């Protein structure tokens, strides 16, 4: 049994502790991020928590000018865009994150750029961010 349970809630609770936590299947060894309560390969719940190092590289990104409500509330707008991206961690799995780079010059952002995790406070939540060292 995983303690706490592998859930969206526990993933974000761990981020508050500045930890990126995934789950690892004890049978096949696959690491899941976000954490899953069931290994979809083995169809078994024989998993354990693993902490993943927040180092990796950017594999896809965009600079977003038309923001959803929660990002508008965080101060973003057409004049203050932000970058969303997918980061592949050195330990294997990939995850979505806010990419903390100059969003106004997206043509200068390069896929493959090395990034490290940042824990970004948003109201009562912490979300995952990444930035180049």
């Amino acid at each position: 049994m995983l303690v706490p349970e592998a859930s969206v809630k526990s993933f974000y609770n761990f981020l508050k502790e500045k930890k990126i936590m995934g789950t690892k299947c004890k049978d096949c060894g696959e690491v899941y991020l976000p954490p899953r309560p069931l290994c979809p390969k083995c169809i078994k719940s024989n998993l354990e928590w693993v902490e993943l190092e927040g180092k990796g590289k950017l594999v896809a990104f965009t600079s977003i000018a038309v923001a959803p409500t929660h990002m508008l509330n965080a101060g973003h707008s057409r004049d203050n865009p932000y970058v969303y991206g997918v980061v592949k961690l050195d330990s294997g799995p990939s995850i979505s994150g806010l990419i903390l780079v100059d969003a106004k010059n997206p043509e200068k952002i390069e896929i493959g750029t090395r990034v490290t995790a940042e824990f970004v406070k948003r109201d009562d939540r912490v979300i995952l961010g990444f930035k180049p060292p």
Partner: protein
Amino acid sequence: MGKLARGVALIGAGMSKFGAFPDKTGRELFVEAYIDALNSVDKGIDNKDIEAMFLGNFSSDIFEGQGHNGPLMADWVGLTPKPVTRTEGACASSGIAIRAGILAIASGLHDVVCVSGMEKMTDLPTSRVTDALAAASDVSYEFPAGATFPGLYAAIATAHMKKYGTTIRQLRMVGIKNHNNGKLNPKAQFPITIKELMERRIAKLKEKGEPVPSWRDEMDFLEDPVSNPIVAWPLRLYDCSPITDGAAVLFLAAEEVAKKFTDTPIHIIGTGQGSAPFALHNRPDITSLISAREAAKMAYKMAGVDPKDIQVAEVHDCFTIAEIVATEDLGFFKPGEGGKAAEEGLTARDGEKPINTSGGLKSKGHPVGASGAAQAVEIWKQLRGEAGPRQVPGVELGLTHNVGGTGATCAVHIYRR
């Protein structure tokens, strides 16, 4: 396995005008599409012939505050008390309704069914539509990181550009081409070319006595941050399908009864559907949709045809990059060559592989739950030689490719005259 127990044909297809209709609700759009479909059945069809209905609808619950739309639409077109099932697969909601209708007939349960889609999206302000559409992505992990729907497709675009050298110009070419087609479709939301949009803008600026930018051509116009603002880089406004109200209705029949309704049925010879890891970050390859590859493989196998045999296709161009990825996933072009194909005109109406002759979601409009069924309306017209000025001459084999979300669902169908 992989075969239908009996053949299924399209015997009628129609759609409402697509656009923004503040004075209409979903049911009026649906009635309009239903009448259009009734009129398309050569020998006529009576409601008593129709045994069941399937409705694709993503989110009228949010868009209109009206849930339970299956029986509501059926009631408004006189199909009560027949069974009605609503299917939901985000923007593929009616693509999967087509498959559900096929299965209902192939199983022997029904001889004739109505397959349809409806979405009424323009009542809400854009920000709330954006929020509602984002519900088709992963709201627990993608959305909190700032992803939007255009943003996720833009991320697919940057990955595709990096891996294959796809260019921004190639993205824009897809939009230009689809507007060229949509101009010839009276049902389209924006039946106007990008060049005409540019000329209209120039005329307006002159009228107001404001300075007119010196755009060299439509490509130059599309790179202007004022006339074509960034939504999610590299996608700009004219890389994105619009917010649309609309409905589409199809009638499907078992092959053995189809001739009762028309001498020119369109045979549905292949159906495929696939799924993919829900979030982009859980996909081994962000530049291709495994759901589409799976659905296409299934449909081609059932139909006994190859990608090269397809003569006309409607693919899910919710964003320009999506059409490029679609034409690769469907095997029309090799991975990485979809952008080049668009740039070289291979996907134009007079090209070797005409794509989105209807104008696609880009110009025709994208009422999400109706788009899959509306694609079949275009193929119905093309294969029967009824597409008017946008007709591709002599086409007998067509395909539809309808994607839900960022590709977690895909339905592919193959049709033969």
